[in-house]
Each structure stands twice: as structure tokens, then as C-alpha cells.
């Protein structure tokens, strides 16, 4: 039992080691294939990091989303106070700042220099305004829109204006990007399978004499196929590692200018790299895709090789 297990481990180890040795003996071809696949994997990974970083960056901007509620001119300051209290009670609202018509007039008089002209008007032309900041959870486009409709339905409200609407639009664009990313990941994954499959197909052609002799001396299909599966899995793993290497270099290059940009906006935003879990998942997925490509190619092409000529 132990012996059988030992032999099983032994022959798989032998297949793995000889596959690795074979790749190392033809470095140029191996590097080319690995680069093609590494960059193929790096593209969706890079896009993913970009989207994640943009989300966290705009997350910082959720304070920029605001709603200005303009009241009718005949709404008294007392009534305005009451409306502000109502707004504060609403969920999804972080802060409500009331600028009463009186306060607005006072401010305008002081800051605009048109104080004398206003005096001539007799009545106050400025409306009361509620300046509402949503909570981070209430800052999603749908929540903000819901809040806008709720406020617009009040009879005392003249008009409701959204500030920082671009942030909401931007996060909608990010959502589209995330979908594109999923699609890209699937397509590029299929690309890896195809590249490995083609590489293994060529390898099988190159090693045809060896395969024929191996089958002739009684090698089973599984035995003949095994080193090719290891080669494929190894290709996938090394390509995934290459992809992360490319991403790591790109992050290092982008970090300083991004930090500078963020500083210009008074932010301490830094580019976030992948988590350890993400790295692990991609390495696993790369290995699997490589193995799959090799399996498809080997199953298809090895069946056709029989030691016919004597």
C-alpha cells in the first residue's frame, strides 16, 4: 500500500521534474509563451485593480454629493427649521444645514457688496435653503434619487438640486467597467487555454518519435499524457506569476504620480495592490487553465499517434 503510493508520488514527481527540465532547456520558446500568457492574464488583473482603486478613490468623494433644497419664498424661518428637522429624521441623511432666508440675506449683504441695492428692494428676494449631505450608504445613485423625489414632494419645496451628480454617474460608469472586466476575464482565460493548447500541440509534434516508442514498449495513454499535463499546468502557474510581476512593477511606477495627484486634491489616497487571497486565486486559476489547455490538446492529438511503422 505504502509502496504503491510511493510509486504513484514518484512517477508524478518524475513527470513534473522532467517537464520543468524540458521547459528550462528551451528557454527562448518558453519565455515567449510565458510572456504572451502573462500579459494576457495581466490585462484583466490590471483593469480589476484600476476599478477597485477608482471605487475607493471616489468613495472618498462621497462627501461631495449634496442636495440643495430651495424653499418657496413664503416659507417662514420657523417652518424651515421644522422642515430641516424632518429631513434630519430621514434615513440616509448624514447632515442637514439650514440657511434661512434671513441668514442668507445677511450673508449676501456682507459678502456681495450689494447691501445698498438689497435695501432698496424692500422684501427679501432670497429663499431658505436646506443643504443636505447623505450618509455614505445613502450616497448611491438610487438612494440619492429617492431622497430627491421625497423632498421634491413637500409642498414648501420650490426646487431640489443635486450637487456632485458626476460622482454618481462616475460610479455607474465604474459598474459598467466591472461588467466589462468580468467578460474580459472569461475571454482572456479562454485565451490562456488556447495558447497552452497550441504550445502543447507543437510539443507533441516535436516529441512524436518519443511518444511512438513509449507506446510501443507498452506505455499507456495516461502515462504518455502525464508530462504534457504537467507542462501545461506549469506554463499556467509561471504565467500567472509573471502577470503579478508585471502588475507589481506597474504599481511601483504609478504610485509616486498618483500620490502627487492625490496630494494636489488634499487627499492621502494611495494605490492599493492585490490582496494575498487575490494573488492565490489567480495563481490557482492560471495553473488550472494551463492544465485544461494541455488536457484538451493532449487528448485530441495523442490519440492519433500510434506506433504504426515497424
Amino acid at each position, binding site marked *: 500500500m505504502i509502496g504503491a503510493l510511493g*510509486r504513484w508520488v*514518484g*512517477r508524478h514527481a*518524475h513527470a513534473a521534474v522532467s517537464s520543468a527540465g524540458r521547459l528550462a532547456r528551451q528557454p527562448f520558446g518558453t519565455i515567449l509563451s510565458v510572456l504572451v500568457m502573462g500579459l494576457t492574464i495581466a490585462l484583466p488583473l490590471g483593469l480589476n485593480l484600476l476599478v477597485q482603486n477608482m471605487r475607493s478613490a471616489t468613495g472618498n468623494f462621497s462627501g461631495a454629493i449634496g442636495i440643495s433644497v430651495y424653499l418657496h419664498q413664503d416659507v417662514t424661518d420657523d417652518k424651515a427649521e421644522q422642515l430641516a428637522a424632518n429631513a434630519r429624521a430621514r434615513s440616509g441623511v448624514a447632515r442637514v444645514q439650514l440657511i434661512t432666508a434671513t441668514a442668507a440675506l445677511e450673508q449676501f449683504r456682507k459678502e456681495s457688496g450689494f447691501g445698498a441695492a438689497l435695501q432698496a428692494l424692500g422684501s427679501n428676494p432670497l429663499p431658505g435653503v436646506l443643504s443636505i449631505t447623505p450618509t455614505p450608504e445613502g450616497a448611491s445613485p438610487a438612494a440619492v434619487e429617492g431622497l430627491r423625489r421625497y423632498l421634491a414632494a413637500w409642498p414648501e419645496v420650490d426646487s431640489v438640486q443635486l450637487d456632485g451628480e458626476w460622482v454618481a454617474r462616475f460610479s455607474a460608469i465604474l459598474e459598467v467597467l466591472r461588467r466589462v472586466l468580468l467578460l474580459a476575464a472569461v475571454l482572456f482565460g479562454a485565451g490562456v487555454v488556447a495558447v497552452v493548447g497550441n504550445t502543447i500541440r507543437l510539443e507533441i509534434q516535436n516529441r512524436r*518519435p*518519443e511518444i*511512438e*516508442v*513509449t*507506446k*510501443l*514498449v*507498452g*506505455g*499507456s*495513454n495516461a*502515462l504518455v499524457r502525464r508530462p504534457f499535463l504537467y507542462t501545461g499546468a506549469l506554463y499556467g502557474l509561471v504565467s500567472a506569476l509573471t502577470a503579478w510581476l508585471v502588475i507589481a512593477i506597474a504599481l511601483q511606477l504609478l504610485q509616486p504620480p498618483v500620490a502627487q495627484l492625490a496630494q494636489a486634491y488634499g487627499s492621502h489616497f494611495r494605490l492599493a495592490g492585490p490582496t494575498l487571497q487575490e494573488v492565490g486565486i489567480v495563481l490557482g486559476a492560471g495553473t488550472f487553465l494551463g492544465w485544461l489547455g494541455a488536457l484538451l490538446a493532449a487528448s485530441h492529438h495523442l490519440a492519433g499517434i*500510434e*506506433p*504504426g511503422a*515497424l
Partner: protein
Amino acid sequence: MIYFDRVAKRYANGREALSAVSLRITPGEMVFLTGRSGAGKSTVLKLIALLERPTRGQVIVNGENTGKLPNRKVPAFRRRIGVVFQDHRLLMDRPVFDNVALPLLVADASLREVGKRVRAALDQVGLLGKEQLRPTELSVGEQQRVGIARAIVSRPPLLIADEPTGNLDPVLAGEVMSLFKRLNEVGVTILVATHDVHFVRESGLREIVLESGVVAGSEESLPLPPLQAHR
């Protein structure tokens, strides 16, 4: 050991290589298969090694009816037959050791066993000490002997050879033939397809002559040997 009963083989291109071959080789025999080119010698060997299956008739080798052996059992069947080629079919990019070890690795032998047996096989063909050389560094005669070492390394009860001396000068050919004789003396059943009529006559061993797809001088049906039960 080998039993052909009225065997016909027609290839996919329509050529009928064998029309009705009946022959029998008993365990421990050494037999020559002769005939002109195109008489069907290679086809007989291919049918024995299960590189081809018969179109009609029965081929029974090592107790297995090759026409009925399921594909998954073919590898195990082939492991019990050693094959020597005219062009030796060595892997030129691998050392002698790897070439000879191939049948053992395929059969899952332990590494210690592989080393021991490879050296024993190379000793038998007189090439001990050349394990690490590449076939390209050897002479033609030595390459052929490596091919023989590979065929006998897993100690198959049956050895078949297709024109093993075809590319060799008479001296080297004589060496290879006497090597086969020595193997036969230790109990290996051997079938050699050859043009080398001179050596055949001199050896005094049995000769089966093929003539355009039939065995010359005998077409009677032979009694069936016992068959292996299929699991």
C-alpha cells in the same frame, strides 16, 4: 507462444499484405522469417506486436487473441514483447541509460530496480559502462545493440526483430545474430525477420518462408493453443 490461423491482413489503402498465413512458434524456439520484400514479413511482426489487428483469422500471442483484446489492455500486452527495429528507433537526444530504461519506467519499476536491470541488459549486449553516452556517439553496431538492450531489459518472454542486421556489415551482423542465439539459450522465444539467408542456412534453425502473403509449402490449419481467460 505465437499462433496464426489463416490470417489475412488488408490495409486501409486496399493492399492485401497477407492472404492466409498459418504458423506456430512454440515457447523457447528461435525462428527466422524470410521472404522477398513485400512478402508480408513486416505485417506478420506488426500483427504480433499488436500494431495492427488481423482483418480475418486469428492471431494468438502470449495466450491473448489480439483481434479481441480491448484497447486498454494493449499497453500491458506490449510490455510482454520485446521489439528490435532495423533502424533501432532510439531517442537520439537521450543518453543510452534513458533509452534502455524506457520499458521499465513505463511499467512502473522502482528506480533501484531500473538501475540494476538496465546495467544487466547493457552487460548482456556488451555495452556496460556506456550508459551516459548519447546514441550519436556510438557506432551503428553499438546503436543496434542498445536497441536490443531496450527490447530485453524488461525480460519479455518473446522477442521479435525486423531486419536487425539490415544496416550492419557481415561481422557486426554475425555479432548481433549470436547475441540473439545466447538470449534464446536462456529461454527467450525469438522471431527474426531477415534477408540474411546465408546466416539462416548456417544456423540450422527453423525458417518460415513467406511468399506473396502466404507461408510457402504449408497451408494446413494448426491446432489451437490454450487461450488466456479474459477478465
